[in-house]
């Protein structure tokens, strides 16, 4: 039997944490792009496009992420796509993130005075220019704190991808735990690593919130 020293445990966990970070980044960037598209539909002038977008958001906010991941993992192969845990995890988290980010940014758009739209129109800008030059920059800037807050939630959510077999921090810790029988130490360390990743972001979000309140 292989003996695990504490250093072995920490080293293996840190190596696995790379995948947690990578998956979080991929899901955040992917979710941002898809979320932007959902946002366009959500704030469009067409009633049906708004309804479809709010249905999309309600669907992802009203079902467990674990179920969404299972549906990705078992559903995409039915469409004839070969799927690995990594693709299922990244895609699942991307759609999950897109729904939340779209809703956060929509709240930013809704918070802007209507005069901003009128001013844009009176300067002769068309709809897309108004969005790109006037509305979205302001909406992003006032929703920066909840966006960072959601990133923390997303990092924590990557833990669930261990269940569909993606080899990240939690899955590695399960394997190490099965070999060492030291759950207290192993899961304690995993919690610590997640804390180190999330806490600075939480503090940053809090600072942004204070700045926004002071303004």
């Amino acid at each position, binding site marked *: 039997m292989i003996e695990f020293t504490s250093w072995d445990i920490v080293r293996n966990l840190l190596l696995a944490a790379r995948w947690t970070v990578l998956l979080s980044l991929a899901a955040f960037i992917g979710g941002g792009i898809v979320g932007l598209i959902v946002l366009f539909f959500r704030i469009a002038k067409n009633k049906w496009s708004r309804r479809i977008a709010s249905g999309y958001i309600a669907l992802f906010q009203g079902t467990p992420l674990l179920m969404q991941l*299972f549906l990705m993992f078992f559903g995409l192969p039915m469409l004839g796509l070969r799927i690995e845990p990594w693709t299922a995890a990244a895609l699942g988290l991307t759609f999950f993130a897109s729904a939340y980010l779209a809703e956060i940014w929509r709240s930013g758009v809704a918070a802007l005075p209507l005069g901003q739209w009128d001013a844009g129109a009176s300067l002769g800008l068309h709809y897309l220019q108004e969005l790109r030059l006037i509305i979205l920059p302001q909406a992003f800037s006032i929703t920066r704190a909840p966006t960072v807050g959601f990133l923390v939630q997303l990092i924590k959510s990557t833990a669930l991808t261990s269940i569909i077999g993606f080899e990240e921090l939690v899955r590695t810790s399960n394997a190490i735990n099965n070999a060492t029988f*030291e759950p207290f130490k192993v899961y304690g360390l995993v919690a610590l690593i997640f804390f180190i990743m999330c806490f600075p972001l939480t503090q940053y979000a809090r600072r942004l919130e204070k700045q926004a309140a002071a303004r």
Partner: protein
Amino acid sequence: MAFAWLPGALGDIAHGAATTILLIAVTTLAGTLLSILGAAGRRNGPALLKRAIACYVEVMRNTPFLVQLFFIFFGLPSLGIRLDPILAAMLAMTLNMAAYTIEIVGAGLDAVPGGQTEAALALGLRPRQVFVKIVLPQALKIIYPALTSQVVIMMLESAVVSQIAVRELTYEADMLQARTFRSFETYFVVTLVYLALSMALRRLLVSGGRRALGAGVS
């Protein structure tokens, strides 16, 4: 897509959904109570308690629920605390939810104007009465929508406790798909059940809140 297995599975799905509802009911009650104590302690307790509560909130909010659950279920036995899966799940869910609701309840307590406390004290109420009868009801009314969202989020998060073999909705889905080999259809149906549960739970909480806390609760 094939759903021939569904009629025979309805009993299991209903049983799982009932366990999920039990879990969230216990968590909501225990979590809200704990967070009221926590928020009050964080404002009026001794300095050490204040710091302990602040640490607790930060640790819980910055680590994944799944890891907290594994820590409680697999880690605590090495300290001699051995829990049933369902008890471990209830404990983990309550502790997790309280960390979020302590902040929410605290915000509500801060939002009640200080004049309310002064007026109640001037009427001769004891400090505890002031808190329970004057400040807390007003605070709960203010934060009720945020509390409702947190309960729904926790209900969705409870899917994770299937991983320690609590026989709730997701666990039943895992068992069903292992039996029927219809993974996608099984999870699809169960996802719809979750969607219905979360919508019903939200509606129930809003109408219950209107009755208990009066009009103006959304």
